């Protein structure tokens, strides 16, 4: 797997196993994550995409009985982010996540975006205002909400709420942004807006995206990993995976013959 050899890496997953109590959900996963590129994860339902993504921000630590094995090395400082010695909060400060369902907090638009900064102890008003505006511009939401920054976030539409969550994730300048099926709850217009946005964002941040939508993976990503039953079956440049997959299973999946 040297498809990424000419790209600088942001992270490298080595020999990752993951267990929900006794059930092994990830098996011996290896995967390089190229810096400022978009890596897509595809695969049939239940194959472990979400499980894999949530290793990157140690979300599994919230529930008892979950166990990681192996390494996820974060560059440039070569930090193994799944090591039990590393505080999950330290990891989450560097790696943000956008969830499948928009999950704004019961706060104003402003406070939602400022949340990550406030959690880090930042309370200077000017600084927050600057950051919030920048994040909302980045997430292509500023034009629509600039007059209702102090309205409750619940009053936004679903697509706007999801872009708000992207703004929230961006406001803290993360090194990696994780997306777990970010458009599966949205209509086509909102979906294409978010896809465009994701492609814009790769200029600044490394992106990992899980999607069920083949076209979406083909459209937005640079690299694609096909996962099946907790294992990476194929990993390559996206156009290669979608035009000349080297594994039969991958071909069957992307052409819709199973899954």
């Amino acid at each position, binding site marked *: 797997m040297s498809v990424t050899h000419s790209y600088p890496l942001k992270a490298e997953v080595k020999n990752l196993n993951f267990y929900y109590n006794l059930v092994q959900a990830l098996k011996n996963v290896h995967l390089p994550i190229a810096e400022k590129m978009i890596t897509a994860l595809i695969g049939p339902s239940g194959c472990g995409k979400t499980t894999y993504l949530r290793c990157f921000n140690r979300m599994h630590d919230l529930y008892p009985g979950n166990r990681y094995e192996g390494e996820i090395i974060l560059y440039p400082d070569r930090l193994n982010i799944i090591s039990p010695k590393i505080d999950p909060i330290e990891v*989450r400060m560097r790696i943000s*996540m956008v*969830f499948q369902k928009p*999950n704004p*907090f019961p706060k104003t638009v402003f406070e939602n975006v400022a*949340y990550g900064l406030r*959690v880090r102890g930042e309370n200077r008003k000017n600084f927050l205002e600057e950051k919030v505006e920048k994040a909302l511009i980045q997430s292509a939401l500023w034009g629509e909400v600039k007059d209702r920054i102090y309205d409750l976030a619940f009053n936004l539409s679903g697509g706007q709420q999801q872009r708000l969550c992207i703004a*929230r994730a961006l406001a803290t300048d993360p090194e990696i942004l994780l997306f777990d099926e970010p458009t599966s709850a949205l209509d086509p217009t909102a979906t294409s807006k978010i896809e465009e946005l994701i492609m814009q964002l790769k200029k600044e941040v490394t992106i990992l995206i899980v999607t069920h939508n083949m076209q979406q993976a083909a459209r937005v990503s640079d690299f694609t990993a096909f996962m099946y039953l907790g294992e990476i079956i194929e990993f390559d440049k996206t156009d290669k995976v979608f035009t000349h997959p080297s594994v039969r299973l991958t071909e069957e999946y992307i052409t819709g013959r199973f899954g």
Partner: protein
Amino acid sequence: MRKRTYLKLKERGIEFSLLLSALSSIFITLSIVFILLYEALGFFKDVSIWEFLTGKQWTPLFAQPKFGILPLVTGTLLVTGIAVAVALPVGLIVAIYLSEYAPFRIKEVAKPILELLAAVPTVVYGYFALLFLTPILQKFIPNLSGFNALSPGIIMGIMIIPYVSSVSEDSMKAVPMHIREGSYAMGATKFQTAFKVIIPSAFSGIAAAFIIGISRAIGETMVVAIAAGMMPNLTLNPLEPIQTLTAYIVGVSLGDVPHGTVEYKTIFAAGITLFFMTLSLNILGFWFRRKIREVY
């Protein structure tokens, strides 16, 4: 054909008896309110509303009776205030702990114990306040009288904690997991998540819990009747003996005031006052509960 009519009739009969039992509970409630209002009106034929609402003394059993309700109202508010000052913060903290921090094992033990706290008869709490807490408090506060508002107030607060904590906890647990995860994913600690996200998300439920707690405190009778002193006293000093509306009502009901006299009717005058106090709180609580449903 015959069977069909029979079944239909049976169905009708069931429907009718269900309706009847539903109506009967409404009827009973309405008649209680009606009797309360009726007897209270009788009272106001003898005593002016003005005197009732502004008079500073409540001595209906004296030779020269005074009918100012204020001492009973301040007594009620004072004890309620103390109880609430104990129950709301502690109840909220217990709820946060149980919903966000406690491991499953501790939850399993703590919840039945809390429920037990609510199952202890209130008389026991009353004597506990009088015979146990008051003497202890007197060691620290020498001018605390044997009967006072402070001690039953604190005990009542402890008594109400389970009501506040269980309703608050339910509303915190109802906050969807993905909202919680959203907070943790931003790098928040447990504490930050609880206070910045969970509490605001569960706000209407917590407010409802507070209102339930306050209504319980206003309506509580036994503890104050035993430990607060049965002395109508227009004061906000928690160290003095006082009397609450409820304690007055039991006190007079247990005595032998003759039916139909003004003294007898004071029960209903105090009752209607209590009724309006709790009614307004319940309306507030109803309004909050309706808001809960709007959020999620």
